[in-house]
């Protein structure tokens, strides 16, 4: 008997009301994060990664509306909860690390004050809270934590600030940590350090992590399973091993070919996927990737593909995976 997954997103659709009309930012996304696992989301800019996170923490923009689906957090729907209940969950049960560490701290307060302040729910003395803040800083690998607490955000480097952000997010030992491209603004050396630290912390605290990135190498390094998103749809999902070694969807294959890490020959031009992301206001029928796909079949233009199981057992939304097509 397995416990309820930490996060279970079912058939989620979100649309933005814009001047040009309704923009279908997410369409029928399914996502499950089991306990103590690290799930990665990968996709190019504008594929709906950020909308998905904002929907999970229920901090969507005013012009956004959830049109279908449900988000279950530990078996309970987040959409039924009041603003007050949601606030009670944020920071304690689920918390978040943002992309740009230079912007995630209040510039006029010392790190110590901010770290003490976020513990306002705990009935501890100020000295105890400070002690805990120092422990968390040590845990994420910041030396001299006690002196460091009295410094302002600008006195830290980018990598340190991101580690502080992680320390703050993990302070209440949440069940789910959402990391929105936490290493994109950092250089490669720091990226490796942060990833390593995240893995250790995840093992230590026992939380689940939803890790968003467009860096395929980082996802492969860190995550247990991965979801590939394209233009607002989850088009392929499965374990990192299956998806990266035997990609089933043409988009995933193209994406992997574009990864500079996979290029063997010297070249002046990095490979790209020709074409552009389709307009999400006026959606054409059929597969969302058909305009850029090299292997289209007549069916792609008319029918939206269902999820099919690939040879290795993970799922992808592509007509080519249908048994009848495979047989030809």
């Amino acid at each position, binding site marked *: 008997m397995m416990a309820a997954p930490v996060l279970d997103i079912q058939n989620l659709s979100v649309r933005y009301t814009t001047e040009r009309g309704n923009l279908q930012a997410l369409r029928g996304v399914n996502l499950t994060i089991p306990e103590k696992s690290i799930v990665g989301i990968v996709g190019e800019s504008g594929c709906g990664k950020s909308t998905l996170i904002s929907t999970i923490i229920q*901090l969507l923009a005013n012009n956004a509306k959830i049109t279908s689906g449900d988000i279950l957090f530990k078996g309970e729907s987040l959409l039924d909860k009041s603003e007050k209940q949601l*606030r009670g969950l*944020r*920071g304690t049960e689920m918390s*978040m690390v943002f992309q740009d560490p230079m912007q995630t701290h*209040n510039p*006029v307060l010392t790190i110590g004050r901010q770290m003490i*302040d976020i513990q306002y729910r705990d009935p501890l003395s100020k000295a105890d809270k400070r002690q805990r803040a120092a422990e968390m800083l040590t845990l994420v690998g910041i030396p001299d934590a006690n002196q460091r607490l009295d410094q*302002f955000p600008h006195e830290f480097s980018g990598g340190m600030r991101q580690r502080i952000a992680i320390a703050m997010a993990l302070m209440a030992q949440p069940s789910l940590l959402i990391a929105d491209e936490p290493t994109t603004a950092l250089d490669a050396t720091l990226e490796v350090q942060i990833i390593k630290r995240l893995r250790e912390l995840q093992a230590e605290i026992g939380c689940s992590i939803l890790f968003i990135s467009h860096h395929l190498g980082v996802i492969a390094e860190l995550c247990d399973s991965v979801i590939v998103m394209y233009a607002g749809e989850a088009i392929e999902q499965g374990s990192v091993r299956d998806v990266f070694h035997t990609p089933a969807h043409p988009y995933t294959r193209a994406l992997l070919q574009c990864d500079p890490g996979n290029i063997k020959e010297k070249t002046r031009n990095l490979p790209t996927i020709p074409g552009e992301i389709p307009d999400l206001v006026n959606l054409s029928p059929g597969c969302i990737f058909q305009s850029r796909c090299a292997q289209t079949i007549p069916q792609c233009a008319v029918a939206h593909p269902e999820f099919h199981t690939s040879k290795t057992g993970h799922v992808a939304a592509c007509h080519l995976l249908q048994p009848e097509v495979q047989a030809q």
Partner: protein
Amino acid sequence: MEQTLKTRGETAQIFHHLVRDPLGLVGLAIVSIILLSALFADQIVPYDPVALNIPDRLQGPSLTHLLGTDQLGRDTFSRMLMGGRVALQVALPTIAGAMSLGLLLGMIAGYGPRWLDNLILLFFDTIRSFPTVMFALAVVALVGPSLNTVILVIMATSIPTYGRVVRTLTLSLKSAEFITAEKALGATNSRILGVHILPNVLGPMAVIAAMDIPTIVGLEAGLSFLGMGVKPPTPSWGSLLNDGYSLIRNTPWPIIAGGLPLIITTLGFTFLGEALRDVVDPKLRGRGGKK
């Protein structure tokens, strides 16, 4: 240096950097002298500022009367000191009131719903459409001249100055990533406003307040000059100027006693404001050559 700074509190750090800036040091010195002389005016004044002494009228400066006497024989130096007290009695409560109300309304406007924002802006714009002096004259003509009337009128017309700046700062802070991060960590609206937006707004507010004090002192002097401020015989820099104006053929000293402190006050608070601007932002503190 780092070690010594770490043990200091926030206020001590600001002070520390303020006195290391020549502009700040001069400003702070002038402002302290003005504040102290106003506070202890009762003890310092050599003569009763309202006591008449007709035989000694219209004297020039001497050791007995440092700045001479006016047409009623009152000691000009004593009247100047007491005038400073009146000036600050008006300026400080006015600033305090206008700043608190401006902070409150500005943060509500910037953070609250759009309709409330529009309502508060309408209120600000209505107030700002009155020219302060004209408005003050009209009110004084209606309810009669008194210090409290002057304070209330100037306070009311100063609220939008603060409110608009606070609103703009709050609007830009509202969408800052660290506020989103706080929300994602479950902070309530009051916590975001009180703990995160307020400290970010207070620095610029302190700078505006320091710069605004001379304006208000000038306004009070102007109204008193027109006889709409403090009632005679209470001395004010404005009424000193008015007395001196009519005596300009006999003696320049009352005009100097009324005008010079106005200039010095303006300079002192402006210097202090300029220096504060560099100091209140922790990022700029201790940078920029002025070490």
